[in-house]
């Protein structure tokens, strides 16, 4: 089940990054997580057949191009900090909105909170992550290389996902 959810997370993330930000991404499953201290991170929490939080971290150096693409800025225009944050929030919002029905099926109902920028991810993760000796323990993670940087997605779920809450395509 974990492997199926991870594959879905990769597929949805790659699709949304391409269609929304016009950026191609490449899976780098074996690499270490991004250095969160030098990344912009956002989260979206949800409740429904299962409850949890999706976290997205994007390298700061990749953000100008990513936000610029979404806004349609010219090469000599720089997105503001607020626009960069807004771009990450919109990306995680769309990824989460596409991920949940892809995992649980279109008949299910989820309530998704507004996306939020996280200032201290390491600390914030303690609220929604069960930790093991190696640190936070997401149900699924997608590590992507994108132009100029990297992007990580971590899916945390409270407890176990009921087997009947998983949609098989």
């Amino acid at each position, binding site marked *: 089940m974990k492997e199926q959810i991870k594959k879905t997370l990769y597929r949805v993330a790659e699709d949304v990054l391409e269609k929304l930000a016009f950026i191609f991404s490449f899976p780098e499953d074996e690499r270490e997580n991004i250095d969160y201290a030098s990344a912009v991170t956002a989260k979206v929490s949800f409740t429904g057949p299962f409850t949890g939080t999706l976290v997205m971290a994007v390298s700061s150096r990749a953000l100008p191009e990513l936000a610029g693409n*979404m806004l349609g800025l010219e090469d000599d225009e720089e997105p503001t900090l607020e*626009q960069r944050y807004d771009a990450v929030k919109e990306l995680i919002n769309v990824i989460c*909105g596409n991920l949940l029905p892809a995992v649980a099926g*279109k008949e299910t109902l*989820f309530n998704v909170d*507004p996306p939020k920028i996280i200032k201290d991810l390491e600390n914030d993760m303690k609220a929604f992550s069960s930790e093991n000796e190696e640190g936070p323990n997401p149900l699924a993670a997608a590590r992507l290389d994108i132009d100029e940087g990297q992007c990580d997605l971590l899916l945390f779920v409270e407890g176990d996902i009921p087997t009947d809450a998983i949609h098989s395509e």
Partner: protein
Amino acid sequence: MSINVLIVDDSGVMRAMILKSLRMSGLPLGETHQAANGQEGLDVLNQHWVDLVIVDINMPVMNGEEMIDRMRESPEIKDIPIVVISTEGSKTRLEKLQQKGAAFIHKPFSPETIRDTIRDIMNLGGDDEGAD
């Protein structure tokens, strides 16, 4: 005929993306207005002539569904075509929106999807394209 459009979304980036897609679509755009939630959207509708409303669902202050309900209750604006652009994936919620007479576009979207949906809901033929 040019179309005056109101875009309602709490994300400034998404409003910019929708506007960019509309400009790329070839549809004859007139005035464009923006609002960050349903209440602001209703305020714009009270002050300007709008031919088409494009609205998100999940927004603070007043969500898109409530805005649509308020529009449908108001004689002056009840017939304005509405396109919902959202990440909503639940069949039940989508059917509810369709019952209110709104068309639906799923995020992420392409300019072609926006163009075709607007042509459809506003009964525009394929030869109504603007010059730009």
